[in-house]
């Protein structure tokens, strides 16, 4: 602490502590604690808050697992399925993302000339100046029944009638994949970039094939970057809202859409809060598990 003050001077130190403290306490800790607390309270009108009915309860969590008492089902199949679908799809999308981004990151970091690398990075970034909602709509235009891709395919005579990409969720998966590629590419790029090029040549000189060089040299070196990219993409994909709203087929639900419904349409904030807590908990557990499996520490991930 003393060191911190000496290094930055009293003015800047105080500013840093206050601003970071504000950010942590007011924007992260308090809202999350409030949500956490709210998720254990009954959904009662504001007037009755703090009254005798306002007691801690697990109804919302029970509802998530077992559904409303009036329904005859043993479990809340609908919500749990949406939840599992969301998590599994997010995992799948993270993996596809990794496979898609790894070669790009490797190419930029180790193969391309400095000029080409800059050009590629810029052309990766520029589309993300447009906001997520608009990008999703752009994809919708591309994939729609009368959309660009169908029109081209029909003109070329590949197909007779338009393919319903939206109903098949092709549009959704493409959109979700594309939405967070930068968060995959940059950690990968940063990690691979630090690999000494001689290591690659040494491996090749010793007779290693390209695939083996990647498996034994590049990937172990880039492990922290891979974990970091996967963590971020998974978290953000599982928690995405705009892309699913715009691109999912009418009968596909993303878990965030359920949460959104509880908060906004059904005006049941405590239940929405409980659903958020479930998503957050499972996501965090998943990430910790990944880190355990890949033996990376949290410090390495944020590097």
């Amino acid at each position, binding site marked *: 602490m003393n060191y911190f003050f000496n290094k930055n001077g009293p003015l800047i130190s105080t500013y840093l502590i206050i601003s970071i403290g504000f950010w942590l306490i007011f924007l992260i800790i308090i809202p999350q604690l409030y949500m956490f607390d709210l998720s254990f309270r009954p959904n009662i009108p504001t007037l009755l808050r703090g009254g005798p009915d306002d007691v801690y309860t697990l109804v919302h969590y029970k509802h998530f697992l077992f559904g409303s008492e009036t329904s005859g089902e043993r479990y809340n199949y609908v919500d749990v399925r949406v939840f599992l679908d969301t998590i599994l799809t997010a995992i799948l999308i993270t993996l596809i993302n990794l496979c898609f981004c790894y070669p790009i990151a490797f190419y930029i970091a180790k193969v391309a000339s400095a000029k080409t690398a800059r050009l590629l990075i810029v052309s990766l970034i520029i589309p993300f100046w447009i906001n997520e909602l608009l990008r999703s709509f752009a994809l919708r235009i591309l994939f729609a029944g009368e959309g660009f891709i169908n029109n081209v395919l029909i003109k070329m005579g590949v197909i007779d009638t338009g393919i319903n990409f939206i109903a098949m969720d092709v549009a959704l998966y493409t959109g979700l994949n594309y939405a967070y590629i930068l968060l995959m590419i940059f950690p990968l790029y940063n990690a691979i970039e630090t690999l*000494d090029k*001689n*290591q690659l*040549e*040494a*491996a*090749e*000189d*010793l*007779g*290693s*094939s390209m695939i*083996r060089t990647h498996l*034994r*040299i590049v990937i*172990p*070196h880039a492990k922290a970057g891979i974990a970091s990219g996967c963590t971020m993409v998974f978290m953000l994909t599982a928690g995405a809202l705009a892309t699913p709203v715009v691109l999912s087929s009418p009968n596909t639900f993303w878990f965030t859409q359920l949460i959104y419904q509880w908060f906004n349409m059904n005006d049941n904030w405590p239940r929405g809060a409980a659903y958020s807590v479930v998503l957050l908990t499972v996501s965090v557990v998943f990430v910790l598990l990944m880190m355990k499996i890949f033996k990376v520490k949290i410090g390495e991930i944020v590097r």
Partner: protein
Amino acid sequence: MSADVELQKVSVSFGNFYAAKNVSVKIEKGEFFSFLGPSGCGKTTLLRAISGFAEPSDGKILIGGQDMAGIGPNKRPTSLIFQNLALFPLMSVADNIAFSLEVRGTGKVQRRNRADELLELVALSGQGNKKVHELSGGQKQRVAIARALAIEPAVLLLDEPLSALDLKLRQKMRTELREIQKRVGITFIYITHDQGEALTMSDRIAVMNEGELEQVGSGHNVYEAPHTPFVASFVGENNAFYGTVISTNGDMVRVSSQGKDFLAKAGDLKDGKKHTFQKRDKVIMFVRPESIFLKDQINQADNIFSAIFKTIEFEGNLKNIYLSIDGVQDVRCSISNAVETATLSTSESIELKFSSRDAVVLPVGPLAVD
């Protein structure tokens, strides 16, 4: 299994720039061959061409008589030791050494045995389980050698592998490298800008300058019979006397330099013949500092001249005396530490001697810059 390496008019270019120009040399089976040259002269480039990482823009590379054109680095019978070693930091020492076996699908036990064998060869027995970063510089060096030897390459290529080590260790590793080479009996092609390294280890040395071979020969040959002023000034220390030819008599040349007459022998040409000179040719006469003696040190010498004493430098086993002729021509003379020099005083004129057999006359040409 060792193999010879033949370069036939090899050039390597980067755009318009030729990093290696028209290099032709035949390196014999089992030879310890060094490329010696200043930084940036194209040594690494040439080695990369031999190992397959750079494609020659012209010429042919033959290894064991086989043309290497279009054969990738992982398919050549060569192993390269990189300037920075490029050990794999995330693998154990044994895994590093056995990597080339691993990629060929050799079983675990066999790999381990081979690694142990090689660790013994490089005097690192029992260190196989260590991580690379737990080793000292010299040990890393040896691991790199062991790794390169694991698949028994026909040719080992070494790119200044000792440059990162401190002086003592470097000298020790020189001897060790030479011993390892004798033990495994394969061709070593060694790159260095350190002439001491090249002279102590090599069977033959190729002196390079700006992408071209200046001279190929044994250490004795390049040191004692340089073909060009570059070789004379780059390999070892040398005094260069600029002058003009007065007369010639067979292989002996009389040169006038700084208003004095000297007798020296004509330098060698590539084909073993001597340079021939005409009267008034501009030449450089090279005399090694250790071939110049103080007057009373020896009796017989056919060149005697005097110079002004400037300073003396103590270098442990020998002393360097710096002198000057008329303030224009610097002369350096190295004498054994045993010789008494306490009586010398600054600005004193001293008589020096050297034998015409130790002086080489070459046509004027570029010198190596320090």
